[in-house]
């Protein structure tokens, strides 16, 4: 049984249909990359999985339970954590507090929380010096680390990552992706949305390519990375 399954999911923003029937699955322990050009529906797919949007039809099944329509507060308690687009770190709280609030989906004592935060700082040593800094003072890369750390503090079975490389310098991107591997090694399944296709496919086991609300391609990451169609999906026919 897959950990996550989308069955013919359709989603609309008002009159615009953003997803026109998406079916995909993520097996336990995998990193799956969801690729596609801007506006293809990648973020919408993640928002639908985490309950920020309700599908107009179709269903989302997580760990054997139908979760479509449940609402984000309930879904995150089932062990599905979403690191949303734009990082969405609370600017007026410290890095430590932000990470700690990632555990709002479960009961934990103060002592456990402190231990969790320490574990995150071990995983992301770059942000440890800023533990007690208010987050609006941080750079984009540091914010991204904090956001991923906050997502992991939920101890999810499945982590949804939305464009972790967005707006980051190449060296920082490298670091973020190394962390994604490490997350997988620790037993967390990852569904990764990326524009940076090459980077995403280099860490993923499998990939899906979206084009204007429909799945266009799917396959093993290595096969996708070798195909010309990926390039065409981003840059049009002439570039391929």
């Amino acid at each position: 049984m897959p950990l996550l399954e989308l069955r013919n999911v359709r989603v609309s923003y008002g009159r615009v249909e953003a997803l026109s029937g998406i079916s995909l699955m993520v097996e336990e322990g995998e990193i799956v990359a969801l690729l596609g050009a801007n506006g293809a529906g990648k973020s919408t797919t993640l928002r639908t999985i985490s309950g920020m949007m309700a599908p107009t039809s179709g269903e989302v099944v997580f760990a054997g339970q139908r979760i479509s329509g449940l609402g984000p507060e309930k879904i995150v308690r089932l062990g599905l954590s979403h690191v949303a687009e734009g990082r969405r770190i609370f600017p007026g709280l410290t890095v430590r507090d932000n990470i700690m609030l990632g555990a709002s989906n479960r009961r934990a004592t103060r002592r456990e929380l402190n231990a969790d935060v320490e574990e995150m700082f071990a995983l992301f040593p770059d942000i440890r010096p800023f533990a007690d800094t208010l987050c609006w003072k941080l750079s984009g890369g540091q914010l991204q680390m904090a956001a991923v750390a906050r997502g992991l503090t939920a101890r999810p079975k499945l982590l949804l990552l939305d464009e972790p490389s967005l707006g980051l310098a190449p060296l920082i991107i490298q670091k973020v992706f190394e962390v994604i591997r490490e997350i997988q090694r620790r037993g967390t399944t990852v569904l990764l949305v990326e524009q940076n296709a090459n980077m995403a496919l280099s860490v993923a086991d499998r990939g899906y390519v979206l084009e204007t609300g429909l799945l266009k391609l799917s396959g093993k990451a290595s096969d996708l990375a070798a195909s010309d169609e990926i390039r065409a999906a981003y840059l049009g026919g002439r570039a391929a």
Partner: protein
Amino acid sequence: MTVTTISSASNRVPKVPLFVLAGAIAIGLVLMLPLDGYTVSIIMQAATYAIAVLGLTVVLGYAGQITLAQAAFFGLGAYSLALGTLDLGLSFWVALALAVVVSGAFGAILGLTSVRLGGHYLAMVTISFQQIVTLVLTNWISLTRGPDGIAGIGRPSILGRELTSNVDYLIFSIVVLTLVIISVWKLKSSRLGRRMEAMRDNEIAASVTGVNVYLTKVISFTICAVLGGLGGALFASGFSYISPDQFSFAESIVFLTMALLGGVHSVIGTALGTLLLVLLPEMLRFLRDIYLAVYGLAVILIMIFMPDGIWGFVTLLSDKLFHRIAARRASAPLKLAKNETPSSAPVLEVETLSKHFGGVKALDNMGMTVSANEIHALIGPNGSGKTTLVNVLTGLYKPTSGNIRFNGETITGMAPHALAARGLARTFQNIRLFRSMTCLENVILGAQRPGNDLTPDGGNAEARALAALAFVDLLDRADDLVGDLPYGHQRKVEIARALAASPRLLLLDEPAAGLNSTEKQQLVELLQRMKALGLTILVIEHDMPLVEQVADHITVLNFGERIANGTPAMVLRDQLVINAYLGETHVHAAT
């Protein structure tokens, strides 16, 4: 040249004669019915209040600005008239003019504060103003006679007949009210009224369409205050006695409720609401003690269940029941204003432009040139600074440094409406239309941009707007509310609004976003027809197949810097560009 028949909810009944008729009937009833003195004075109160409440129709209903100080203006008018006639010895009519000028002047000052403030702050400023007026009326005893008020305020005479009888004065008030209703109703469909509504619906879209939003706000506050003052002056003269507690903050709330209850967007609703709330205490006499509590509850319930008031509710129902048929034709094909720029001369020149948000360099030392009659595409990955560039170009952001020239003129840092007046038009990534209006009304606002040369060939604004709608194949939807159109059509209406302004440069911010493949193909064709018309277009787009098909020239941004520039064939094969889109490095297994 298309003729179409459409059904629409827009109301084409000539209303002015109706209003005159309604006024005449009201006067007839007053003369014929044996009204007792008390009823006459109640109706007199309603008539004078209604004039003031119509001011709120303008500022709140049309312009979408909040004011909680209408009782203060009502009071300023009343005191100006009273003191003008009694202390200064002015005639009624001169004192009435004084009342209007005094309240109007204060209204303009209040409006000026809206230049810097909106929303809650503005509400707070108007409350402060209200409180200060109340304090001055109560405490400046040498001028206002303090809390005891002023008695013995006189009545005017018309054609040698002094309006001493209450019935005469009531008829006079009804005549004035009818005139005010007609003016406020006329204002709605005037150019100024449309601008107010555009500002209310979408301030940013209004400003890039050429509406000077600050000026429009000041004007709407002034009109509101003038009507408040006029109503107050008539009230003072009608009741011959005034005191500060009649013009308190609580009364401002009453005025506001009257407007909201009836329906703040329409004159009929406003008049209806006023009448109801003046009569209601009489009708609900049995509720005496809890009357005001019921009233407070009603305000909450109206907000929850009838946000457009009683009249809004009624018109919603009638729109569902009746459809009117109207025919629309575009008399001439769309033409652009004469373009003085020689072909291939630079229309837009951007030099060393930077825009920083705190430490983030959204644009960094960026340069580009758009030549006449080309389709120039601006592309780049998410977050590369494209939309920031458009917002700087159209005046929504002030650049940190750098220089922008438009047809040879330096335009760096100009306000959006000033740029619109120079022929810069744009559309938005997330469509910004004036939601309460029809397609045609939206496009007319575009055509009415300041500096649009309408007469030669172009005809009037409406003809030009119809031509623009025909150009995007939406003539048959001209009288539909824009919100009723599918998304793809709304994009086209936005383009038509920009086209109607005969732009010298058209900026399209992601016009293909959210379109399906058929609509995208139509967009390609539309872009090509626009180019054939002689337009210069700067298009920001993610859809590469579309860009490939239409662009003459591509500029690529990444991290706020220009990384490539040239023909599509060159740019799309550029390794830097490919890296920017697909990522440059493969991660190596962390060991």
